């Protein structure tokens, strides 16, 4: 088995060397983020050091191998609010996929990929997300791990100067291997993007084909008015286990998107969420009661791809109200994964 892996690595290196001869060069890159998060929820404090490496290796103009892993620590007091701190570390593989970019209308993907339900799971890794906590409804349509093992097609079905209609469809098999979990499911997402207005709206659907087959559906909105440094994002999701929505606005303190000064590096964020419990379903990881929550946060974008984030949230639930304080520092890195300088 080790010999097979060595052979695969050798072939990968040989491919990279060959591809490095073209113009522009097919140099693999290592990207991702280092982060340190601190959180106090209802008086219980925890810390999370995280590293998220992303490896991208193009092979010519049509083939691409992409991978993202996550190594995360969780350090907290042994009994929540008192006792000594102890830590655990976890590792997971978010995606390892081979893409064939056939044309602007079709990309075929096989392997392990992020489940394309609504937009949060695919588009907002921790270095992009404006707030540290994932939305309450995040697991609807993405259970059990946020990733799927199988095949996917995606692309722009129709692209016109004034509007673009995109689509994604996939199937996934059941995998129970540790750190590689996925559910047996099929689904898709489609949306329309209006570039001049900076507006995208779309819908998602998933048929979960295990644990008594059930449907999840959703809708999303993303709006960035071109002349104002405002980002509005939101999702609605529905499943037999519950339904809810989140809506977030983030405003850069700048007169326009192109302004760059110290104040323009500051971003104010607000998010409101509502969740309504229905019948519990296996592995849904959803709250056991209705929840209303709002969050306010500030992001500061330092030079050298470093971002600071602090936020306060208040959660109202019949299971108990709670204050949620979060702090995060994220460093985004990017460099070639092959010798030869930058």
């Amino acid at each position: 088995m080790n010999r097979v892996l060595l052979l695969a690595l050798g072939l990968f290196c040989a491919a990279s060397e060959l591809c490095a001869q073209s113009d522009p060069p097919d140099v693999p890159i290592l990207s991702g983020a280092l982060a340190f998060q601190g959180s106090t929820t209802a008086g219980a404090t925890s810390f999370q050091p995280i590293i998220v490496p992303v490896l991208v290796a193009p092979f010519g103009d049509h083939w691409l191998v992409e991978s993202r892993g996550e190594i995360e620590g969780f350090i907290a007091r042994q009994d929540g609010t008192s006792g000594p701190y102890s830590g655990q570390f976890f590792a997971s593989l978010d995606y390892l996929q081979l893409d064939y970019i056939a044309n602007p209308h079709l990309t075929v993907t096989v392997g392990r990929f992020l489940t394309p339900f609504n937009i949060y799971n695919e588009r907002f890794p921790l270095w992009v997300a404006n707030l540290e906590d994932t939305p309450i409804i995040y697991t609807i349509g993405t259970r059990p791990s946020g990733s799927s093992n199988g095949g996917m097609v995606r692309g722009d079905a129709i692209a016109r100067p004034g509007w673009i209609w995109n689509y994604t469809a996939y199937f996934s098999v059941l995998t129970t291997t540790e750190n590689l979990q996925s559910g047996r499911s099929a689904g898709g997402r489609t949306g329309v993007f209006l570039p001049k207005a900076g507006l995208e709206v779309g819908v998602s659907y998933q048929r979960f084909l295990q644990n008594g087959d059930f449907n999840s559906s959703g809708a999303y909105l993303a709006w960035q008015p071109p002349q104002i440094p405002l980002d509005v994002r939101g999702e609605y999701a529905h499943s037999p286990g519950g339904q809810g929505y989140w809506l977030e606005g983030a405003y850069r303190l700048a007169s326009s998107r192109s302004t760059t000064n110290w104040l323009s590096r500051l971003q104010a964020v607000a998010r409101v969420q509502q969740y309504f419990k229905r019948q519990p379903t296996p592995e849904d990881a959803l709250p056991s009661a209705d929840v209303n929550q709002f969050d306010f946060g500030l992001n500061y974008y330092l030079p050298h791809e470093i971002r600071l984030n602090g936020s306060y949230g208040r959660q109202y639930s019949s299971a108990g109200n709670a204050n949620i304080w979060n702090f995060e520092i994220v460093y985004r890195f990017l460099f070639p994964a092959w010798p030869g300088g930058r």
Partner: protein
Amino acid sequence: MKGLVITVLGILVFVCSLKVLALPQTSAQGTKAAKAVPEKKIDEAKEGERRFQENCGRCHNPPESISPREVKAVLQHMRVRAMLSAEDERLILKYLAP
């Protein structure tokens, strides 16, 4: 498991062979691009910036620095993630690595 490993290896070998066949064509395209007039390059860089703001800027800021060696992998990654068109990729490449 063995079947999966053999399949992955087969795909890698196939990719390598495709790349070897594609090299001369890629070089020819590069020669054509080198003959483009400077004004056109400037226009394309501006259009690339506009397309960056329109597509990539929806989620993140432009990178503070990115080298020509890195830019192709980044753009292909985003072509899949953000469903950029081939024309978007070409123009954004002009903007990020003129």
